[in-house]
C-alpha cells in the first residue's frame, strides 16, 4: 500500500493508530477524522458539529487529546494516535469506560467516545480532581442527553478506581447509585403492582 512517490495531488502519510502502523496516500485537504472513519473504518470517532465545539471526534495524538475534525490527515504524519477503539485492552474496559457504564454516564452514546477520550487524558494530568475541575475539563465536549451529572460521576468513579480518589462528592453525587426514595417506593414485583392497583380500585 505504501509507495515512496504519491500519486499527483496526493500525499503519503504514515502513522500508528491503536498500535498498528498505517501508510496511505491522501488528499492534502482530507480531515483526520474522515481518514480515521472512512479510510481506516474506525467509526467510533464521531462528527457532531464541524466547528470544533462538540468534541465527539476527540482522539489522542501523541498522548494529547485533540479534536480530529480540526486536523488535516497530513498533520498526523508520523504521529502515534489512539482512538476509542484502542482504549479497552484485551476485552477489558478501562476505568473511565467502566465509570460511564456504572454511573449511567451515557444515553444515546454519540458523544461518549469523545467524552471518554477527554476524560482519560484529563485524569492522566489530574488524577485527583474536584467536581469543578472535572466540569471545566469537559468543556470541550458537549452532551445533549445526560445533563452532565452522571458524566461527572463517571469521571469521579474512574478517578477512584485509578487510585486518585477524587474530592468528596457534593450533594447528589454519591458514587454508589442510590435513590433511596425510589427504592422504598418501588414495588418488589409485578404481583405487588397488581395488588397496589387492585387496592386503589377498591378504594
Amino acid at each position, binding site marked *: 500500500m505504501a509507495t515512496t512517490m504519491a500519486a499527483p495531488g496526493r500525499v503519503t502519510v504514515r502513522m500508528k493508530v491503536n498500535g498498528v502502523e498505517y501508510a496511505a496516500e491522501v488528499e492534502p485537504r482530507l480531515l483526520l477524522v474522515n481518514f480515521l472513519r472512512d479510510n481506516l473504518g474506525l467509526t467510533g470517532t464521531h462528527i457532531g458539529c464541524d466547528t470544533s465545539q462538540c468534541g465527539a471526534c476527540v482522539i489522542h495524538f501523541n498522548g494529547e487529546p485533540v479534536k480530529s475534525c480540526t486536523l488535516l490527515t497530513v498533520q498526523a504524519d508520523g504521529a502515534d494516535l489512539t482512538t476509542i477503539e484502542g482504549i479497552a485492552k484485551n476485552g477489558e474496559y478501562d476505568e473511565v469506560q467502566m465509570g460511564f457504564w456504572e454511573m449511567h454516564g451515557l444515553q444515546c452514546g*454519540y458523544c461518549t467516545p469523545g467524552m471518554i477520550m477527554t476524560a482519560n487524558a484529563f485524569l492522566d494530568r489530574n488524577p485527583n480532581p474536584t467536581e469543578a475541575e472535572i466540569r471545566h475539563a469537559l468543556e470541550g465536549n*458537549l452532551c445533549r442527553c445526560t445533563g452532565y451529572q452522571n458524566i461527572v460521576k463517571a469521571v469521579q468513579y474512574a478517578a477512584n478506581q485509578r487510585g486518585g480518589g477524587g474530592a468528596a462528592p457534593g450533594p447528589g453525587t454519591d458514587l454508589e447509585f442510590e435513590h433511596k426514595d425510589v427504592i422504598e*417506593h418501588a414495588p418488589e414485583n409485578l404481583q405487588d403492582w397488581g395488588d397496589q392497583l387492585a387496592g386503589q380500585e377498591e378504594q
Partner: protein
Amino acid sequence: MAATIEAPEKLVGKPLRRREDPKLMTGDGNFLDDIRLPGMTYAAILRSPVAHAKIRGIDTSRAKAMPGVVGVFTGEDLADVNPLPCAWQAAGVDNNVATPRLLALGEVRQVGDPIAVVVAESVYQANDALEAIEIDFDELPAVVDSREAVQPGAPQLHENAPNNIVMHWTCGTDAETVDRALAEAEVRVSQSIFNQRLIPTAMEPRGSIGVYDPGTQEYTLWATSQAPHVHKLVVAAFVLGIPEQKIRVIAPDVGGGFGSKIFVYFDMPLMLWLAKQLGRPVKYFEDRTENYLHTTHGRDHHSDIEVGATADGRITALKVSTLANLGAYLSTVAPGIPTTLYGRMVAGCYKIPNIHVDVKGVYTNTAMVDAYRGAGRPEATFVIERACDLVADATGIDPAEVRRRNFIQPEDFPYDTGLGMLPYDSGDYAPALDKALQHAGYANLLEEQARRRADGSSKLLGIGLSSYVEVCGIAPSKWIGLSGEGWGAGLWESAEVRVYLTGKVSVTTGSLPHGQGHETTFAQLVSDQLGIPYEDIEIEHSDTKGTPFGFGSYGSRSLAVGGTAIYKSVEKVVEKAKLLAAHMLEAAPEDIVYENGKAWVKGSPDAVKTIQDIALQAHVAYDLPSGMEPGLEAVTYYDPPNCTFPFGTHVCVVEVDRDTGQVEIIRYVAVDDVGNVINPMIVDGQLHGGIAQGIAQALYEGAVYADNGELITATMNDYAIPKASMLPTYELDRTVTTTTVNPMGAKGAGEAGTIGSTPAVANAVVDALSHLGVRHLDMPYTPERVWRAMQSQEARA
C-alpha cells in the same frame, strides 16, 4: 404453599446498568454515518442561501462534469413526486396546508431550503460539485417574526394561506364568558410572553441511506428515525407510491432525537428515488449547519395572557392568545403541537373555572417548527406557571401558597379541565410541592433572600417554583385520530413476544430507543413477568422487516404504551404456557399456578414444569392438548384507554450578580411523580437530561434570525448548547402516584424534566429581581438582558 419454589431476584425497580452501553463506550456502535455499503455513493445538498426568492434558473452543467459526480438533480426532475404530507392537522378548523417538496420547485421560502442534490463517489467530490451549480434568484421580501407575518402587507409565503395563517383554533370556555369572569375578578393581571425558538440539537445530526434492489424491486431506507414504521408508511404510500410491502426501514443506533427525528424529511424519499435512478446505494448525512438551518426547530410562541383571581389568590379566569410560528412549511405533525399538546394543557395543575385559549399557526421564512422535547407542554406550563407567580405578586400571597390553593385535589381525579384534553388520570400534587419545598429549605431561603436585599448584597437570591402536569402516552386512537384530534392515525403500539424451543426469548416492539435504554427496561419487565433470565431475553426494535407495525418513540410513550403491549403479550404467552402445563401435569388448567418461570398444580409444588420445559414441548409438539397450535408466542396491538399525566414540583434557586447580571443556579431540586418506575437509574437520567434542556432554554439558548431570514445561530459556536460547567447538580426526589391506565402503573418520564424546569428557572430569576419592580422577563436570561432589566428598573425607582 410455594415454599419449595425458589424465587429469583426481581429486577423491576432495580437500577440495572444498561445492556446498550458496552458497544457505545467502545466505539462499536453503528450510527447512520458509520454504515458503508458496497458501491455506496454520497449525496450533498445545495441549499438556498436566501430566505425567500423565485428560482429563475438553475445551471447544473458544470457540476455534472466534475470529477466523481454520478448525478445532479433538481426539483424539476422530481416534479411528479408528491410533496411531504402533513399527518396531523389541527382538529375542527381549516388548515391552510403547505408542505415542502423534496427539492424546491420554482420558489424557496427559507434559508436552507434544498434546491439540488449532487451524488458523487465521495462526500468531498459531492461538495466540490455543489460549488459549480449556478442559480438565478429573484429575491422576495422575507418575514421571520410571527407578529409581523400576520400584519396586512407582510410578505406572503403561500397562496392558500392569506396573512400567512395556517389555522385559527380555540379551546375552552367561550371568550365572552371568560372576558366577563376577568372583568369581575378582584385581581387582574396581563402579560406578554415570548417562548423563544429552540433548536433541538441531537448530538448526531440527521441522515438517510437509500438502497434499491432491482432483482426483488425492494427498497431499503436506513434513517436516523424515532418512528421507522411511520416513515415506511409515509414514504411508500404518500410520497413515492411504492407498494408498502416493498419497502423496509431500519433505524440504526440513533444519537438522540428529542423529537426532531420523528418527522419525515425530504432526504428519506429522495435517497430511495436516487438509489433507483442511479442503481447504487446513496447516503446523505447533514452537517451541523444544515441541521440547524433545516431540521425542525421547537417552541416560538408569542402569547398574550390575562389572568383573573380572587384577592386570596384563587384563579378564576385565564385567557391566552398565542401566535405559534410554524416556519416556512408544515412539518409532519406541526399543527398538533400548539393545539392539542399546548392549548389543551394550559390549565396545568389547577382548577380554573374559565379558560379560553386562542391559537393561530403562522408561516414565516424560517425553519419548520414541530415537536421538540415536551412539545407544547413546556409552552403551556410556562404560561400557567408564570401566571401563578403574577397572581402571587399581585395578591401578595406566597407563590407556593397560590399553587396550593388552586391545585386539583386527589379526590377530583379523573379530572376534566374543560379544555378538551382527556381527563387527567391520577394525581396528588401537594405532596410533591411540600417535599420539594422541604428539601430546598424554602423558609430558610426566603429569610436569606430578605437578608441579602436588606444588606445590599452583590448577589441577589431568587427562588422559583414550577408545579407542572404533563400528558404522556398520547395514543388513544379514537381520541387522537382523524375523527378526534386530527392525527392521521391512531397511535397504538405493538409487541410480539416469542419464546423459542430453547427457552430463549425475542421481543419485538414498535418502540425504539435513541438513548432511553429500552432494551434494558423492557428486558427487566419481561424477565420478572415471564420468569426467564434477563440474559435470555433479546429486545428487538427499529427494523420494519418482519415486525408488527408500531408508531415509534416520542411523547414519553414507550413504557406506558409500548411496554404495555409487551406486558399483554407476555400475559398471553403465560396463558398458553399454563394450558400446556396443565396438559403436561394432567391437571385442570384452572388449577395451574404460574410464578417465576415455573408452573405447578395448586397444592403440589413438588412437581413443576419450567417455562423451558413448556417451551420445548410447545415446539416439538409431540404431545399438545387437543386443538392447541405449536409454538409459544403472542402479538398485541395495544390501544390505551387514556393518556397518563405525570406531575411534580421543581424548585430553582439562583444567584444574580447585581453588577454583571450573571445568573447562576445554586440549587436545583426536582420532585417528580412519574408513577411506577422500572429502572430508577434510567428514569433519573431522563430527568437530568430533561432538566438540563429546560434550564438551557431559560438561561442560554435561542434561535435568532436576522430580519432578512438569515439564521444567525447556525453553528454550535453561536447557538449556546450548555457545557458541563454551565449546569448545576440536580437534586432529585420522587413521589409515586400510580395510574390505572396501564397495568404497570407507569406514567412516563422522558419529557417531564424539560416541562417542569424552564418556568422554575424563569420564576427564580424574576423573583431575584422582583424587589426592583421586575414582573416578567423574556428568555434566555443572558447577563446583558438581566443587567438591562436591573438598570431600567433601578432607574425607574
